[in-house]
């Protein structure tokens, strides 16, 4: 039987056909990149440069502001034009460095990052420090600082669970990475396993990616490792770590606890690839794979993108639109953010850029809740979104908290199924915000 998580979840049309067979291409080097200091969960990095400074590729330009923060590096060689404040693709403001790229800058021709570090002789501490130095954050989208996740002190890690699920519709960046860089991902897993001293390694991949499953299995056999690759039944939100752990090791992370509390650490394949690059090649996180997709793009695809490249450049790299998009999204369509400015830069957490038409959005009028119960049925966290919606609508935030509002992780399953088209996720987010404000 193919494994999956126990309850809730939805089956959106996966829409991966647009880009699943398109190999990762270089997006090209833009004339200007805009590198924000806030590309991760936690405090923005402290700016280290000023206007007119000359930057080299991979140079540290933002230093982690304390433990819960991440280093930021220059993704290009060039000169700082200005320091400014911009809106990120997720709508937040951030300080950013605008860099004019050096003429003729060609990362392929440069001799940077050709190191071959023998990490097997490094101490665990040195490896974690290297990961922190190179600015690695969770590239699945949450951008949690990896050096914090891997600082497990003396706790026992029974399972390192590798997240190759990529359950968001449209996105194929991880899929392509697993096909094209399986050996590097496996090496990233080996590094992580050593640091975490994990007893077992399980790699979870949804069954709609049989080629990726095969590719990783082949690498594991080549390297003669004992990692297990598990095919999971395709179902959203299986890529959430709580659902993934339920599906792979059949343990529930208790409310308010961390995977580590049930003896597990979850890492995304993109992050593991970045760990490989950071530790082995000493290459900081200055690029990532981005799926640029949608039925209204001329040539959807997967691109290796220098961080700081604008969304507009990526649309151009796809040959532009076949019709004007109604909505554009940074990230996946279930949890991503709608974009209002195509000048926003690609950052560490941007796994996809989607251009959607009216046909994709299937709009309909909002009505009152008809108590169909579909949101409850769809909620993977066992909540009652309709009850929470009404409580928050009546500003009864405390009661909503008692009804487990804080367990909501905004996966969007409720909103996806709601026939009344109520803004359930938005309302629950508001409720959480009000509770935070009160606290």
């Amino acid at each position, binding site marked *: 039987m193919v494994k999956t998580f126990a309850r809730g979840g939805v089956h959106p049309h996966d829409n991966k056909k647009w880009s699943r067979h398109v190999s990762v291409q270089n997006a090209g080097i833009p004339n200007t990149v805009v590198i924000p200091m806030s590309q991760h969960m936690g405090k923005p990095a402290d700016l280290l440069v000023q206007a007119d400074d000359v930057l080299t590729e991979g140079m540290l330009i933002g230093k982690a502001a304390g433990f819960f923060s991440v280093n930021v590096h220059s993704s290009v060689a060039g000169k700082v034009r200005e320091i400014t404040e911009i809106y990120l693709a997720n709508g937040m403001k951030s300080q950013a460095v605008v860099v004019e790229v050096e003429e003729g800058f060609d990362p392929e021709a440069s001799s940077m990052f050709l190191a071959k570090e023998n990490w097997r002789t490094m101490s665990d501490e040195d490896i974690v420090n290297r990961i922190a130095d190179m600015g690695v954050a969770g590239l699945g989208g949450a951008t949690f600082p990896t050096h914090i996740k891997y600082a497990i002190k003396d706790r026992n890690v029974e399972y390192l669970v590798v997240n190759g699920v990529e359950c968001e519709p449209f996105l194929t960046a991880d899929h392509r990475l697993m096909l094209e860089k399986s050996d590097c991902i496996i090496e990233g897993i080996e590094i992580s396993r050593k640091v975490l001293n994990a007893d077992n390694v399980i790699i979870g991949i949804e069954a709609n990616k049989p080629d990726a499953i095969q590719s990783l299995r082949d690498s594991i056999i080549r390297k003669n490792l004992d990692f297990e690759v598990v095919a999971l039944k395709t179902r959203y939100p299986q890529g959430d770590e709580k659902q993934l752990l339920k599906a792979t090791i059949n343990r529930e992370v208790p409310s308010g606890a961390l995977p580590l*509390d049930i003896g597990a650490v979850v890492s995304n394949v993109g992050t593991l690839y970045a760990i490989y690059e950071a530790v082995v090649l000493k290459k900081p996180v200055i690029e990532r794979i981005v799926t640029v997709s949608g039925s209204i793009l001329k040539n959807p695809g997967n691109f290796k993108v220098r961080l700081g490249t604008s969304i507009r450049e990526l649309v151009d790299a796809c040959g532009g639109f076949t019709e004007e998009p109604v909505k554009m999204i940074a990230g996946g369509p279930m949890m991503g953010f*709608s974009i209002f400015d195509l000048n926003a830069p690609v950052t560490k957490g941007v796994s996809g850029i989607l251009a959607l038409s009216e046909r994709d959005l*299937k709009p309909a009028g909002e*009505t009152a809740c*008809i108590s169909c119960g579909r949101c409850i049925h769809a909620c993977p966290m066992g909540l*009652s979104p309709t009850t929470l919606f009404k409580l928050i609508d009546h500003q009864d935030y405390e009661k909503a908290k008692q009804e487990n509002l804080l367990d909501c992780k905004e996966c969007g399953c409720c909103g996806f199924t709601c026939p*009344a088209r109520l803004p359930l996720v938005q309302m629950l987010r508001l409720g959480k915000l009000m509770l935070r404000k009160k606290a």
Partner: protein
Amino acid sequence: MMEGKKNLLMTSSPHLHEGSSTSRIMWTVTACLVPAGAWGVYNFGLTSLWIILVSVGAAVLTEWVITKLLKKEQSISDGSAVLTGLLVSFNMPPSIPAFIPILASVFAIGIVKHTFGGLGRNWMNPALAGRVFAMFSWTGEMTTWSAPVIGAGADAFTGATPLAQGASEFLSKQSYWDLFIGNISGCIGEVSALLLLLGAAYLFIRKIITWQIPLSYAASFLLLVWIFGGTVSGSGYFTGDILFHFLAGGLVLGAFFMATDMVTSPLTSKGMIIYGIGCGLLTFLIRIYGGFPEGVSLGIILMNIFVPLIDRFTKPVKFGNVKEVKNV
């Protein structure tokens, strides 16, 4: 910096939707009732069509007037008023004077639905409330039956519904097949079990209704009928006529189209099953031991009252509500 792209839609995630909508649900249910209604018209003649039209018309007009008076957004296109009106007419005898279904529809929409705030906020099924209102107000008219105008029923039939006649008397003149296809007397929309079940099957396929309520309702009711149904006529336990009680009367219409009304049924699967069993029990008690030959309408309405209570005790259990934390 360059100008951003204008006029992009900015809304919160999720950005995709499965495609369902309230109005699509209402119109689909309405469409699934049309064959059974058409059979009613075919079976009882054009007066039935007239009853259907005035019921729907009165419901829609009431909806329009009330939303107008309350300065609310027009809500006729969501289909719920049409559906309520249609269900009111389905629960009327074919020869009823037109003012009764009209008043029943006005009561259903005006009192039951809108005094509580309109769509989604009524705690009782409006159409059933309309029927019960008519039943208690004009009991005579509501229990006067006209004969089918076609088929075997026209010859064999004396006037009473199969349930009023009782199984043995009915089966001495007509067959289960007549019950199944609807060659019998009864309310306009309830007679053709066949066409109602076909409509319900489509609702299952479209996932507009789920198995919990119809199955638990029908199964609990039929189980009780099988065990105790025969005792009334003196033939002892475990002799109740399940097939007769499933096909005769309003059970199919009630279990598949009215007890499943989303607004007035519980939210969770567990709650739906409890509610369905409650409907089955009450329908059984009223039909077998009560003063009415029917029982479906009152059974469902009484269970509607318990829905908030059922919801309170069948809340979903949240994820991560595990007692033991391993490996701490």
